[in-house]
């Protein structure tokens, strides 16, 4: 965490462009150097870098992330406003990807064991692979275009709620969450299929079959339990991937979340906001990694940390 703050601070201060000039835009030419200096002093960017860093860290301790260069509001407030929308989006996408993907994967394994489900299984598997290769924002374009031309009044296209209301409307959440979850769902389906397949050839499965245990119990109770590990590991890795994807999906659907804030802050060179966002995102990612490690350990106490690192290397993003 500490390293994270130093690195983000260093990275952001490599950004060229004087925030005072960005804030004032073209008006800056009419100002005297003294006035410019006083604005820099007000923003605190006239001190040396270590001083700025220590000052910033002290404020973080007290829950302040500084003020936005653009409108002078507290960064904490701005991010807090946006946090709800993004967590609703990422959280529901994670749930969709988990349940849809695991269901899809189990369906494929189940179909393979039936007498004439092989073909259907290969169709489902290719479907998952193709879905994994589609850029999510492209899928969003096509869906928006299709829905807008065919008129489905039930499905809301843009924004978080109808004009004039507040809160997050489920009808508005549906499409962005499905789109954001699309590639993850395919990833979960493929992972469930491969890890269950790897379990199915083990000897305990053959023993269970020969003992006369019903197929559904073998599949869900024995094999299912043993292939949970990789799924939990992927669950932890999905949080940063979904957060990354949310930047694009939020832009497509005019979703007022942190992703769009980050894009706007990049174009506006709004360091305090970018810095705060990086910190919030980094914390979320570290927390989700930690949570998946802990759950993994609870489910399977044999798992050591080093082994988890190995699974990370095997399962790219």
């Amino acid at each position, binding site marked *: 965490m500490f390293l*994270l703050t130093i690195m983000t601070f260093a990275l952001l201060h490599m950004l060229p462009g004087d925030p005072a000039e960005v804030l004032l835009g073209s008006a800056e030419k009419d100002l005297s150097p003294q006035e410019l200096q006083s604005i820099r002093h007000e923003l605190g960017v006239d001190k040396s870098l270590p001083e700025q860093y220590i000052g910033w860290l002290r404020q973080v301790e007290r829950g302040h992330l500084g003020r936005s260069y653009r409108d002078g509001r507290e960064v904490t407030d701005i991010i807090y406003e946006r946090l709800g929308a993004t967590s609703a989006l990422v959280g529901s996408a994670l749930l969709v990807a988990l349940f849809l993907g695991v269901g899809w994967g189990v369906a494929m394994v189940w179909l393979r064991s039936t007498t004439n489900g092989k073909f259907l299984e290969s169709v489902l598997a290719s479907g998952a692979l193709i879905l994994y290769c589609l850029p999510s924002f492209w899928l969003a374009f096509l869906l928006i275009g*299709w829905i807008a031309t065919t008129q489905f009044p039930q499905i809301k296209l843009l924004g978080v709620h109808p004009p004039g209301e507040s809160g997050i409307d489920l009808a508005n959440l549906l499409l962005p969450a499905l789109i954001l979850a699309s590639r993850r769902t395919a990833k979960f389906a493929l992972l469930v299929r491969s890890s269950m397949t790897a379990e199915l050839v083990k000897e305990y499965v053959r023993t269970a079959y020969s003992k006369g245990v019903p197929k559904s119990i073998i599949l869900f109770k024995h094999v299912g339990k043993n292939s949970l590990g990789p799924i939990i590991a992927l669950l932890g890795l999905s949080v940063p991937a979904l957060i990354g994807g949310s930047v694009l999906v939020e832009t497509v659907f005019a979703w007022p979340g942190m992703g769009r804030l980050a894009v706007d802050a990049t174009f506006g060179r709004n360091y305090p906001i970018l810095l705060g966002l990086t910190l919030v995102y980094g914390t979320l990612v570290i927390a989700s990694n930690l949570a998946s490690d802990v759950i993994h350990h609870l489910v399977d106490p044999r798992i050591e940390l080093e082994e988890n690192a*190995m699974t990370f290397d095997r399962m790219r993003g």
Partner: protein
Amino acid sequence: MRYRPALLLGVTLLFIPLAMAFSAPFFAAPNSALSPFSLDLDHVNLPPGSVGHLLGTDHLGRDLLSLAAWGARASLLVGLCSAFTAVLIGSVWGATSAFAGGIVDAILMRTVDVLLSIPSIILLLVIDAVLADLPFGKILPAPIVAMLGITTYSNGFLPLFTVVLVISSTTWLEAARLTRSRVQSIMSEEYVAAAKALGLNSWSIIIKHLLPNASNIILVEATLLVSDAILIEAGLSFLGLGLGPATPSWGGMLNNAQANLLSGNWWSVFIPGSLIAITVLSIQFITQES
């Protein structure tokens, strides 16, 4: 050689974007009527299969086949260059880390861990902001500026250079982790211990044992990074941080086509996206089989 349908399918699919990339200058030269820059406002939003425009036109009357073919060149070039840079940096970083061990290993790998904990798109945005504002024309030595084609009037290859740098500066992290774990497992093999016992110095071990044995997995990673880079480029272009309007690319086409959707021109969105999907899919097929 045994029959491998997925590999065959992958190579066949990959042939589509490759053929487009190679044929672009022949059927759509920059000065011809079919060039990706020639606007034809009398023939906007033509559907696929129209006379003279096989894949139709976009909202400015540009030929979509020509745009897609030139876009294939840019997108594949970005993919290859970014993957090459990322793998080069990542494998050297990871191999050094595994080979040196101890405190060097700790410092190098903690750096990678911290950078990995920032979602890559945020890192992309920040790096893009850094690079976009640097006055490259003044920083870089004159021969490189000339090579990149930067003049007072045009940025030349600069956007390409920037995008490649931006993409590879986030994707090398995975390559570094992968190389490190691979090199570490090779280092614990007995033949490396034997080579050490025989008195081979470090460089001979690296060249004779580490590189040949790690190259396989690094090559697969590089291929996957090509498809990642193509997807990232599309995303960056969509946000308006890509190659810019002067270079047609699939991501740029998607960005332009956004405006066409509501007028019913779905094919100008469909074509670049499906080309991206075909390329990524073919790479997935090929790497799964190797």
